[in-house]
């Protein structure tokens, strides 16, 4: 079974610190390979919603991770922070607005818009279907790929955005909206096409029905295990999230895990969960938007 670590971030810190990331890695018995030359870090950049909303990975977390990588591997290690354009988001603005351009200058790392990179073709099967993607060479050529995700609710049937879903942002094709009909399978297929080595969660602030400072850092080498753990924190039933099962079946990871560090229950008790009333409201809103009645009813 995979190990998943849970670390409580100290009250004094305004983000997850290098020591806390290091501690989370020790708990899962992970150490960096000193032979590594090129590292890719994939944060979760959500539209133009900055870290205070709990929807975007805090650049300060990534800054601490960069320091740790340089201390643990080498000061010469090449680090690229990657993201791709999306239906509504443009990397050239998101990197700047969300603080990653500033981080890149301060830490002398590259920020890379995957939608403007050289790619190679990848054909992967998932759940009986074949999917063709472009895989950016900056990802396939890296020696170490680190996924730094957030914990947040998303649309049904995916329900949760965390490690697996974050890889969706590695797909260089910008108009990702076209995948929404088959989102679960596409997420799993992308995780097969682009395998990451280490999964960290910036849970300093999370986004449930509202943002909350959860002061949590997590680590695992298994994206399915860490997502299952995050689903539990977010009061979701992992058994009802179909793409977790598909991911396990496709060999991405295991749904069973061994927790290390602070008890998961502690973070679950703080997470801003969805109430029945909120779920019903969301359902009604979805129906209104789907039927095109939004503008007529003064919504959307």
């Amino acid at each position: 079974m995979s190990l998943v670590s849970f670390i409580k971030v100290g009250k004094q810190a305004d983000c997850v610190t290098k020591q806390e990331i290091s501690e989370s890695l020790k708990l899962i018995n992970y150490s960096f390979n000193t032979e590594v030359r090129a590292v890719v870090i994939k944060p979760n950049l959500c539209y133009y919603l900055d870290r205070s909303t709990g929807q975007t990975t805090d650049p300060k977390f990534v800054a601490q991770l960069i320091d740790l990588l340089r201390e643990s591997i080498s000061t010469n290690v090449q680090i690229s922070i990657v993201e791709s354009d999306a239906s509504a988001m443009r990397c050239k603005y998101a990197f700047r607005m969300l603080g990653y351009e500033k981080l890149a200058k301060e830490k002398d790392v590259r920020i890379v818009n995957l939608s403007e990179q050289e790619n190679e073709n990848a054909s992967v099967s998932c759940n009986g279907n074949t999917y063709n993607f472009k895989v950016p060479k900056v990802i396939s050529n890296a020696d170490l790929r680190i996924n730094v995700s957030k914990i947040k609710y998303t649309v049904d049937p995916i329900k949760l955005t965390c490690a697996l879903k974050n890889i969706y942002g590695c797909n260089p094709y910008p108009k990702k909206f076209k995948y929404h009909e088959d989102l679960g399978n596409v997420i799993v297929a992308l995780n097969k096409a682009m395998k990451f080595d280490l999964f960290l969660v910036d849970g300093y602030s999370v986004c449930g029905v509202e943002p909350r400072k959860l002061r949590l850092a997590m680590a695992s080498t298994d994206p399915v295990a860490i997502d299952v753990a995050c689903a539990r924190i977010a009061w979701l039933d992992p058994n009802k999230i179909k793409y977790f099962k598909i991911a396990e079946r496709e060999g991405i990871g295991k749904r069973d895990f061994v927790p290390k560090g602070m008890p998961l229950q502690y973070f679950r008790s703080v997470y801003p969960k969805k109430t029945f009333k909120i779920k019903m409201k969301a359902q009604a809103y979805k129906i209104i938007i789907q039927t095109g009645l939004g503008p007529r009813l003064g919504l959307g």
Partner: protein
Amino acid sequence: MKNIKLGIIGLGNVGMLHLRHSLKLANAQVVSVADTSVKALEKAKALGIKHSFTDYAEMLRDPQIDAVLISLPTHLHLRSSRLAAEAKKDIFLEKPIAGTVEEAKEVISAAKRNCVKIMLGYPMRFNKNFKKVKDDLENGLFGDVENAHAILVSSGPFFHRAMGYSPVPVPEWWFNTQLTGGGVLMDLGCHMINLFRWFFGEVVDIKSQFGHRFNMDFEDSAMCLARFESGSLAAINVGWFSQTYLLQIDLLGSVRTAYVQHVPPKAMSSVYQMLTKGVTSFNQPHFDELQYFVDCLIRDEVPSPTSIDGLRDLEAISKAYKNQIVL
């Protein structure tokens, strides 16, 4: 009674709102719309608009159009209003009047030269609570307003846009200060400056402090301190940084104090208001300003806020950009 025939130029978010409202106006009829987006024109067609144009200059040649509603990006205000004036159409122009004071003056002279009426789109002047404040101020109920505070925060242009269920990016021009003329002070600040000019007279002096939370070339927050003709000192606080929309004014008078908000209703209230009245309380001022514009045209009266109001707002904003203080 005469029926005013309207053409709408620009069918973005505000243009589409104007179109929906215009369809419910008394004594007015929307005959044509113009936008470069074919999708937007299709939406207008679905609402019953027969004539649509991808080039508004072509639309302006239609002699049956009496007036146009211009809801284009700021950098297009001068050209579109000049062409509309030359085509002898009365103009309802969205705020701000133009990107610069010089351009604003050209808009005014084009309207004057061609003897057409021009009204600036400042819906807060049509909010019933702000109108009550204006009346109370004029009737002396507040005494002397020593201090006032205006807050207008939202996510500005960075709200999550969608065509139906499909997300779309923020239009590129929003990121270019050459095209917008500025940041949040230009976009939202002009509303509050216009409102306080209505309450307290012209801006005598103004100083500002800007924020750049999103690291862009334009300010995404602005705090201005302005002295008005009435002697009132006002803090004007606007921002594009908040996921929550809030428009609030506080007036601190020697006799009475007041605070007034203009915020969107809750979802259920919004649905109820749309079903019963066809317009939400939040959008009612937007509807009322259009009805007032049409009524002024029928009565051959000069509508207000005028283009001079637009110019004075822009002059104050321009001064605020020059008079920056750094704390």
